[in-house]
């Protein structure tokens, strides 16, 4: 069965009303309200996952997930620990290839091209699909070197001045330029946790990827740093297809337009974030987002 889970993009931008006035007894009472950032137009489908299963040795971690991920949109993957959302995220840039004994079946298409095809080089794929991890992991090099690393290994900048431009633009887009412009050549590991995470995002966007995968990018950060990252994610949405795994329901509601709920290795429900949080179809989704388990 092919699920077309995403409806056509909405042209209407004034979508606050249903959220601001949830009905009596609605689940939205129990969850944080989606902010003004939560909505927006949903782009054309960027990634199509069809019956994707992942096995770690004999253990099946993901069961036949079929999901469409739209472009220029933030898609949140939510669910309790061990539900397979990170595993699914990692299939999209083939990071699972690096884990011995891991097998991926099914089909994942990006712009209609099967990313697991033999002709697709995972190195090139990862240049198109950037990733941000849970724990900020800048290289133990300077801030400049961190951001310049991607363009350098992919040979994207022809000259030093061009590279300088890419570094500056990436840091500006990641909202870090003001804070680090005067110390580009000090170590990236000397920044605060939130700054490190933005540095890592700058590093990812320096190669102009099409998709950015984020695996719980704020779980190691304080609320202020988290707010900055969320703001950044919302800005990045204009240019990139963003998939974010999060444990925070509030965060999913705040930053995403689409939400997919995973449970026990299966995709339970997916839809517009507003709808998932206000009017989920599945009982399990309701239980999870209202905090009855998780």
């Amino acid at each position, binding site marked *: 069965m092919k699920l077309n889970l995403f409806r056509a993009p909405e042209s209407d931008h004034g979508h606050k009303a249903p959220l601001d006035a949830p009905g009596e007894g609605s689940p939205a009472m129990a969850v944080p309200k989606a902010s003004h950032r939560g909505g927006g137009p949903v782009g054309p489908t960027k990634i199509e996952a069809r019956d994707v299963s992942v096995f770690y040795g004999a253990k099946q971690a993901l069961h036949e997930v079929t999901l469409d991920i739209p472009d220029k949109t933030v898609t949140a993957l939510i669910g309790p620990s061990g539900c397979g959302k990170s595993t699914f995220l990692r299939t999209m840039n083939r990071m699972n290839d690096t884990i011995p004994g891991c097998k991926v079946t099914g089909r994942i298409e990006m712009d209609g091209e099967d990313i697991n095809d033999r002709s697709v080089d995972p190195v090139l794929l990862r240049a198109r699909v950037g990733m941000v*991890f849970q724990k900020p992991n800048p290289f*133990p090099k300077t801030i400049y070197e961190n951001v310049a690393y991607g363009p350098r*290994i992919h040979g994207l900048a022809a000259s030093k001045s061009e590279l300088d431009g890419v570094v500056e633009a990436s840091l500006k887009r990641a909202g870090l330029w003001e804070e680090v412009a005067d110390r580009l050549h000090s170590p990236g590991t000397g920044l605060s946790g939130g700054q490190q995470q933005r540095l890592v995002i700058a*590093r990812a966007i320096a190669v102009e990827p099409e998709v950015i995968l984020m695996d719980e990018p704020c779980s190691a950060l304080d609320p202020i740093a988290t707010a900055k990252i969320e703001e950044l994610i919302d800005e990045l949405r204009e240019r990139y297809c963003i998939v974010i795994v999060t444990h925070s329901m509030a965060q999913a509601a705040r930053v995403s337009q689409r939400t997919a709920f995973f449970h026990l290795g299966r995709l339970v429900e997916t839809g517009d974030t507003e709808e998932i949080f206000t009017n989920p179809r599945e009982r399990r989704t309701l239980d999870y987002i209202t905090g009855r388990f998780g």
Partner: protein
Amino acid sequence: MTETRVTSEMRAARLRAGLKRRYAREGRFRLYGLLAIGLAVGFLLLLLGRIIEQGHTAFYTHSVTVPVYMDPARVDRAYPQGTNFELLVAEQQLARMGIADDAAGTKATALRSLFSSELKFAAAARIQSNPELIGQTVPITAPVSDDADLYFKHEISRDTPADQRRLSDEQIGWLDRMKASGQVKAHFNSGLFTKGDSTEPELAGVLGAVVGSALMLLVTALIAIPLGVGAALYLEEFAPRGRITDLIEVNINNLAAVPSIIYGLLGLALFINWMHLPRASPLVGGLVLALMALPTIIIATRSSLKAVPPSIREAALAMGASKTQTVFQHTLPLAMPGVMTGAIISMAHALGETAPLLLIGMVSFIPGIPSAIGEPSGALPSLVYIWENASERAFHERTAAAILVLLAFMIVMNAAAIFLRRRFERRW
């Protein structure tokens, strides 16, 4: 089931008792630690103190300066080396001291044995460079013999019965007279550091062994470090996990525990008998030591590669770095301090290794100073072994001195390696 009621006072008492026990345990453990460290430092100081006590006298020596009348009747202009300078000098010295010799020349022979054979070479060299000196009186300086040196260092004493010491009362009298006349001078034993091995203790030096050891370590380092690090990188980062890699891992661990003499046998069979590489050369020694050092380097490198946080590897891979780029741009640089530590330990180990050298002929008397890795040469530990077994008493202090030189070599090497490691160290 009986119900036990635990009051809060009881709980507090139990906690207190337990706390006391815990602190006592911690105190005991600290004490054991201090005792262990104290014991280790004590033994180290004892060992070092003993070696220094025995060896410090080897760092100075005595030379005698004698005016030599280059008798034209006895010194051949064309072949000055043929002159028996020692006897000539002894006779002249006897005459100067106003001592009449018997017909057989026993006194001259006895006096002559107080000079080192270096005297002859020094005198011959002077004549060779300037034959005009024949017929003139030339002051010649040369070391005294080992026994005379020991007497000046108070290691041979007049109080010992004459038949139990190597110098007769008469010889001791001459030495005292020469010393009193200012002919004998104590000075730094530079020959110890500028000469190769010799059968005569007063002429023996460690330079040949130091150069041999250095060349050998160079060969070892050039072979074992790249090979070991490469093997570890492949096994840790590239090789598919499986039964074969497990087998290799187990065998590498076993190889690290193989006695070094076995490696010597292997080296003898492989490098000398089969490949016909020059026997007793730093090349063969270095190859054998490289075989020995490999497992240690591989194990140390693998464990430091394992210690690199996976997040760095993931970051690089997710940026689209290839496996090789990830390994060489991120994992290996971060593992470098550990790799260096492993290399230092195995090199230090290789420097002190003696048993394999025994089998490839490096524990033999080699007086020259090697200038290439294919030339026969000694090594510091084998020099220690040879000198310790020498019958001349003067070699004993030199054995201790050679040990000190070996230790100094090791300290210099380790200091250099630690300096390098500091430069490689990076935080993450």
